[in-house]
């Protein structure tokens, strides 16, 4: 399978009180197309930082990020914006829907930057919302939706442009258990049924069990495959991942 995401000796330092703090240290990661990878680690381990660098939301201190064989360092801000729109779908922990827009309008937002006409945008957005089980919530505003429904709208927004991969940053962090399962079921279905490459950042072992592969970060270092931090809590039993979006309940 083709490598979709590759990082080489990727490092990121932040300045804190004029002292550099290493958030990531020489991370080498490869994600193949169609993979569902969970990046786990405790708070401050650098997993979100890694996700942000892959999404070109931040620039590395050193090292390379190759996405679809493209070195992101060669792109300027305008090109990066266009690249993000074309290639990635991002799911935030706090949903980040625009409160004054309806679910349908929120999902249509990324399509505004594409060449689709208004009618096509509407159709794509409607299909996206139907795919996450919200076909009957098209004209609801975020405040009229539950947290789980908001996150499903956010997933619809992430997939509506048919991106090459989906980056999800703690997508179940703000949800109750039932809603979290709904969201994870949708992500698993997108991976299983549509072959979407998904990179899921989480510190929840239960969420990670929906992924096909799990990698761990500890203090900015990516641990070798199959290795977890020694003090990492025992993971709960895996949850089924083969369900389709029809399993989503309102």
């Amino acid at each position, binding site marked *: 399978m083709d490598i979709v995401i590759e990082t080489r000796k990727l490092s990121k330092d932040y300045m804190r009180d004029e002292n550099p703090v290493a958030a990531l240290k020489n991370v080498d990661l490869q994600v193949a197309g169609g993979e569902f990878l969970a990046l786990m680690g405790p708070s401050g381990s650098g997993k979100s930082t890694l996700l*942000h660098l892959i999404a070109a939301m931040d620039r590395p201190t050193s090292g390379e990020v190759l996405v679809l064989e493209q070195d992101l360092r060669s792109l300027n801000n305008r090109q990066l914006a266009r690249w993000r729109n074309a290639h990635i779908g991002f799911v*935030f922990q*706090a949903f980040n829907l625009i409160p004054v827009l309806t679910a349908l309008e929120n999902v249509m937002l990324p399509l505004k930057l594409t060449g689709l006409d208004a009618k096509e945008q509407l159709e794509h957005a409607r299909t996206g919302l139907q795919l996450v089980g919200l076909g009957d919530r098209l004209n609801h505003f975020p405040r009229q939706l539950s947290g789980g429904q908001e996150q499903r709208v956010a997933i619809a927004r992430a997939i509506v442009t048919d991106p090459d991969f989906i980056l999800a940053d703690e997508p179940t962090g703000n949800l109750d258990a039932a809603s979290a399962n709904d969201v994870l079921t949708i992500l698993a279905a997108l991976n299983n049924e549509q072959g979407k490459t998904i990179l899921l950042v989480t510190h929840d072992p239960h969420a990670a069990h929906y992924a096909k592969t799990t990698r761990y970060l500890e203090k900015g270092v990516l641990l070798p495959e199959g290795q977890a931090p020694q003090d990492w809590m025992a993971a709960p039993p895996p949850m089924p991942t083969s369900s389709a979006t029809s399993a989503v309940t309102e």
Partner: protein
Amino acid sequence: MGVMDGGQSALNSEIWGDFNQISAEYNQQDSSSSVLLRATDPVSLDALKHSIEDDPRLNASTITESDYYHGQTASGAPLEFLGILVSVIMAIGSAFATTNIMYAAVARRAKEIGTLKTLGFSDGSILLSFLSESVLLAALAGVLGCLIALPLNWVTTGVGSMVSFSEIAFRFHVSIAALFSGIIFAVVLGAVGGALPARAAAKKEILSALREA
């Protein structure tokens, strides 16, 4: 008893009556400050002017009615200047107020800015959206201002002079051109006031914008 009415014209600043009667009333029988004459035709106007000015017994100068009223209008220039000065001061204040409001909007919507940038909207798009918002709000405010000013149309008022005991009457005219200029002026103020906040929004780093919320 009666009502003096100059028909909403400049004549409203004057009292017209019988010369002898008013002269007697004000004890001014021997003199008059001005006399209004009408030439039979434009050609004879010069002859009339010369005959008055050249007559040493009259000791009078002549001026056409239009020049006379033009002079009267010129005396309102300080008032006009004052109006413009107040407008400019208020415009500067409005521009700062717009800047302040838009900076607050940028701060309040930092998370949205970060989200939009993550979705692929460029710095230019963000700048344009905030600038458009500022301009549209300003245009709306301009239209509202025009609506508020409309009742002043054709209102006549005046300013009195305690030195000459005279009054200059003037009338507000809210013309289409004035309304149009007002809205354009408001739009320009919106663009000027919103430029810096829009730039600040566009320059926000994605991650810092997302964390600001």
